[in-house]
C-alpha cells in the first residue's frame, strides 16, 4: 500500500504520467514477493528440508558446497538449468508445457492477497479470504493437466489422488474460515490482521480483540478450529502424512514423474511457495498475521519507519515456523492410506468443523 503509493508518486513526479506511474508501481510491487520472499525462501527451504531431515535421522546432510552445505540449492539450480528437458513421444505436448505454468501461477496468486506488513499488500481486495481459497483451487487444474498429459500410469494415478485430496480438504478449510468470517464480519485479510493488533491475547486463537464473555467462550473452539485448519492446509499442499499423491515408494513421484529440467524445478518451487503460503494463511487468520506479539521496537525508540520492517520480519518468521513444523511432522508421522485419508477428512474434520461453526454462530448471537 505505502510502497505502491511511494513508487507511484516517484514515477509520477519524474514522468508526469499517471499511466506510467501506475504500471511501474504495479509491476514492481508484483515482483516484490517473488524476489524478496518466494525465491529466497525456496532456496532456503530446500536446503533446510534436507538439513532438518538429515539431523532427525542422525545424519549430516549436505556438507560439501559452502559451509554446512548452504550453497547446495544454488548448485542444484545450476544443475537443473543445464539438464536436458525431455518431452516423451507419447506426451500431449501443449498440455504438458502449460501445466507447470498453471501450477506456479496458482500458488503465486495466493501471494497477491497476503498482507506482508502494514506497508505492503499486493492487492487489498475485500474478498481476500475467498480469493485465496479460489486461487489455491486453481492448482488442481494444473496438477490434473500434468498427470493427464504425461501419458504415464504413475502420473495419472498421482494426479487423481492429488485432485481428490485437495478438493476434499478444501471443505474443512472453508468451514473454519467461515467461522472466522462469522466472528469478524470481514473477508479482507488486511482488516483481519489490523483487528488482531496489540498484544498476543488479541489474536484470533485467543478469541480476538476486546474483553468480553464471548472472547473467553471462543478460546476452546478457536483452538479446535486452528488445529483443523492446520491439518487441512497440510493436506492441501500434499505434505507427508498426506503425501500419497507423490508417494515415492509406490508412485515414483506422482504427477511430475515425466518432468525434467526447469519444468520440474517449477513444480518444486510451486510446492515450496505453497508451503509458505498456507503457513502464512494460518498465521494471518489465527496468529495475528504481521502483528508482533509484544509490541514494536519502532514505537519504543520512536522510529516509525521501523515498524513495517519489523512486521514483515514477524510475518516471515511465523510462516517459516510453520514450515519447520511441517518438516518436523514429515519425519514423525507415517503416510496415511487412501481410505484413512478420506475418512479423516469426511468423517472427522468436516463434522468437527461443522459443529464448531454452529456453536460459534450461537455464541456470537447470544
Amino acid at each position: 500500500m505505502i510502497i505502491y503509493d511511494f513508487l507511484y508518486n516517484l514515477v509520477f513526479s519524474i514522468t508526469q504520467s499517471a499511466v506510467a506511474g501506475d504500471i511501474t508501481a504495479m509491476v514492481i510491487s508484483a515482483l516484490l514477493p517473488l524476489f524478496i520472499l518466494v525465491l529466497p525462501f525456496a532456496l532456503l527451504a530446500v536446503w533446510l528440508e534436507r538439513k532438518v531431515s538429515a539431523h532427525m535421522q542422525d545424519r549430516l546432510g549436505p556438507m560439501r558446497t559452502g559451509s554446512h552445505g548452504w550453497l547446495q540449492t544454488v548448485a542444484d539450480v545450476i544443475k537443473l538449468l543445464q539438464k536436458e528437458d525431455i518431452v516423451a513421444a507419447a506426451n500431449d505436448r501443449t498440455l504438458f508445457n502449460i501445466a507447470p505454468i498453471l501450477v506456479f501461477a496458482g500458488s503465486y496468486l495466493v501471494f497477491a492477497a497476503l498482507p506482508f506488513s502494514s506497508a505492503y499488500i499486493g492487492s487489498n481486495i475485500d474478498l481476500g479470504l475467498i480469493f485465496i481459497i479460489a486461487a489455491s483451487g486453481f492448482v488442481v487444474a494444473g496438477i490434473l493437466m500434468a498427470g493427464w498429459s504425461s501419458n504415464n500410469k504413475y502420473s495419472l494415478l498421482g494426479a487423481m489422488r492429488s485432485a481428490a485430496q485437495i478438493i476434499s480438504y478444501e471443505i474443512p478449510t472453508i468451514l473454519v474460515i467461515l467461522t472466522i468470517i462469522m466472528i469478524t464480519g470481514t473477508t479482507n485479510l488486511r482488516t483481519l490482521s489490523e483487528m488482531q493488533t496489540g498484544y498476543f491475547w488479541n489474536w484470533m486463537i485467543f478469541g480476538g480483540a476486546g474483553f468480553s464473555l464471548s472472547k473467553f467462550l471462543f478460546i476452546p473452539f478457536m483452538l479446535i478450529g486452528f488445529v483443523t485448519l492446520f491439518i487441512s492446509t497440510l493436506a492441501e499442499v500434499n505434505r507427508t502424512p498426506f503425501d500419497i499423491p507423490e508417494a515415492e515408494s509406490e508412485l515414483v513421484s506422482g504427477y511430475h514423474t515425466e518432468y525434467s529440467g526447469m519444468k520440474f524445478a517449477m513444480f518444486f518451487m510451486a510446492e515450496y511457495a505453497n508451503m509458505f503460503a498456507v503457513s502464512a494463511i494460518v498465521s494471518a487468520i489465527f496468529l495475528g498475521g504481521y502483528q508482533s506479539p509484544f509490541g514494536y521496537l519502532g514505537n519504543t525508540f520512536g522510529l516509525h519507519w521501523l515498524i513495517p520492517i519489523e512486521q514483515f520480519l514477524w510475518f516471515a518468521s511465523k510462516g517459516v515456523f510453520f514450515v519447520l513444523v511441517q518438516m518436523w511432522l514429515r519425519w514423525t508421522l507415517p503416510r496415511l492410506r487412501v481410505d484413512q485419508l478420506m475418512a479423516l477428512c469426511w468423517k472427522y474434520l468436516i463434522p468437527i468443523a461443522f459443529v464448531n461453526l454452529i456453536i460459534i454462530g450461537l455464541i456470537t448471537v447470544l
Partner: protein
Amino acid sequence: MLTEFGKIFVFLLVAVIFVIALVIVAWLIRPSRPTKEKLMTYECGENPEGSPWVKFNIRFYVVALIFLIFDVEVVLLIPWALVYRQFGLGGFMVGAIFLIMLGLGMAYEWRKGDLEWERAKIIPPVIKRPVFSSKETREAEPVKSKQLV
C-alpha cells in the same frame, strides 16, 4: 488507477512470464540430444505396458460429486456469515436451518456408505413380507440354503 483485481492480474502475468522466461533460459543453455529410449514413457526402466489411461476407482467421481454439493452450499453460506448478525437470532436461525439440512444430507451419505473409500456396502431395503410368497416357498427356502452350504 488500477483496480484491486487489476493488480491481481499483474501478479498472474508476472507468474506466467517468470515461468516462461526461466524455461526459455534453460532452453538456451541446455543440451538436446533425444534418443528413442529417452523419449519413452517412464515405467521403471521397462517398456511401457498397455494403455497409460488405466481404469481408476469410481470413488474419485463420487468424492468429486459430494465436494460439489458442499462447495455450492458453502458459497451460499459466505454472504450469510457476513451479515447475519444484523438480524439477531432470526438471522442466525435462517442459516442454522440450512446448516442442519446440510448436516442431515451428510448423515444420509454417511449411512449409505458413500463416505467409505472401499466399495460401498449395499444396504438392501428390508421387506417384511415377500410379495409373492406362499407357504411352500417360505418353507422351501431354508432347505435350499442348506443345500448350498
